[in-house]
């Protein structure tokens, strides 16, 4: 019987490594018992509620190598521990990759952006309220989904790609990275690997208890934005109930390369409609080579929502998503 409301941090150990090797060694030793702590804005709630009970926190923010925004030969590399405020205000990003800066500026609240990091925003866990309440649902390793049931309160849940769990990707920066065709840099004690942002996020069909491809002992250390999409025409919009603190009901990120009025190339992604940021490849294919018009935008919106499977209370997300894609294409 769980019958006490907890809101104070439980006893838990804290490590504050200051260099990469130590951090990776700790992550490796502790595995899933070690909680990777960045800004902590998706950490303390879990711990205070006693709904996640790791043995120790490994604070990553003291590793300078994983912070900051640097220009590279083929784009920009952003340390995963860079705060959202820094990203939102960074001159390189605001000038060349505005879609990411905009997305970061719309996360949560100013104070959360001040300590919250890009890595934290990308790796945050699902916001399904049943899951957050600490119920032993599928995502928590259980055998039931409370949200997708005949009377489940699933207004904020998935339109696509649900498999037992119907939670959605809560991140605002994730769709921006997918639109930018970013590369995720993942380090572990045994080395480094990279993968595309699109592949980084995984749905419940493949892993119902984790939202990213990070394995135990691995740390997301950086995100690389390719020069290919620098200075493209960008669009980011987030619709949420409240204009502060809220997670998107739907968000959209777009990067478009225009040749005059014609769409030369485009990448589009929506958040909060699937457990992963949903890249809209069919829409992209339909847009490529077309000249931009209201009719095309309308068509793109409709194409974007094809195959949506709404639940009890999220039918509105279908027209909302269509409209946001339409607006993204309209520019």
């Amino acid at each position: 019987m769980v019958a006490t409301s907890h809101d104070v941090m439980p006893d838990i150990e804290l490590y504050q490594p200051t260099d990469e090797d130590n951090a990776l060694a700790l992550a490796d030793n502790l595995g899933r018992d070690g909680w990777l702590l960045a800004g902590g804005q998706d950490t303390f709630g879990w711990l205070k509620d006693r709904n996640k009970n790791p043995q120790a926190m490994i604070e990553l923010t003291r590793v300078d190598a994983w912070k900051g925004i640097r220009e590279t030969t083929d784009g920009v590399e952003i340390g995963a521990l860079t705060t959202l405020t820094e990203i939102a205000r960074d001159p390189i990003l605001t000038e060349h990759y505005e879609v990411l800066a905009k997305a970061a500026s719309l996360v949560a609240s100013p104070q959360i952006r001040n300590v919250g990091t890009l890595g934290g925003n990308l790796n945050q866990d699902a916001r399904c309220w049943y899951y957050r309440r600490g119920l032993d649902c599928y995502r928590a390793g259980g055998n039931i989904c409370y949200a997708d049931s005949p009377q489940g309160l699933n207004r904020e849940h998935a339109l696509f790609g649900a498999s037992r769990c119907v939670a959605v990707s809560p991140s605002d920066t994730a769709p921006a990275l997918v639109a930018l065709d970013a590369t995720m840099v993942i380090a572990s004690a045994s080395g480094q690997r990279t993968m595309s942002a699109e592949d980084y996020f995984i749905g419940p069909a493949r892993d119902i208890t984790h939202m990213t491809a990070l394995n135990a002992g691995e740390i997301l250390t950086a995100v690389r934005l390719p020069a290919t999409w620098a200075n493209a025409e960008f669009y980011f919009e987030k619709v949420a109930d409240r204009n502060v603190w809220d997670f998107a009901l739907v968000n959209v990120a777009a990067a478009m390369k225009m040749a005059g009025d014609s769409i030369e190339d485009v990448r589009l992604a929506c958040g909060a409609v699937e457990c992963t940021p949903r890249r809209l490849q069919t829409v992209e294919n339909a847009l490529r080579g077309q000249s931009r018009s209201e009719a095309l935008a309308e068509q793109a919106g409709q194409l974007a929502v094809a195959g949506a499977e709404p639940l009890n209370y999220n039918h509105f997300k279908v027209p909302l998503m269509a409209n946001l894609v339409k607006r993204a294409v309209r520019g």
Partner: protein
Amino acid sequence: MNPNLTRRRFIKGVIASGAAATTTGLWYAANGQDRPAGAVERLIRINVNGLMRSVDVAPQETLASTLRYRLGLTGTKLGCNRGECGACTVLVDDIPTYACSVLTHSMKNGRIETVEGLESASGELHPVQQAFVEELSPQCGYCTPGQVMAAVGLLRENPTPTREEARQALSGNICRCGSYDSYLNGVMRAVELV
């Protein structure tokens, strides 16, 4: 017995009794022994309102807990204790921060300022505080320390914000009384006072 260990325990004992004047029951008692190597040291010195304070801080302790229950700085309020209200906003190196949602150990190298630290040595209110008084910005007052700190943080970064900029900067602070308009009037008046 290792003499160093004994001495360290002794120091902890002194610190603990020093803190007994304030509440400590919210925060959980220490498991002093058998802590793994490499984990943080509990006994730290932190800069709060310009004073270096020695304090025994549990690894998991939030800054709000340390301020309220170790140092007796109860001006920092806990409205939700999970980053959803802003009442616990303090400045760390001039950056508005939810004290309920950062660890003290994460902030230990920073310059921490709470609402108690704003008045001048002679007891003069900070311009933001003065302006909030003049505009009667607070209602129930529970969110006020957080609003004050967010406003002070803004004015340090941007001494002449527009009303819209002030609104954005303070947007991480809930006021259930709905005194937003009065707080913004206060910030705009503070701009004049500064």
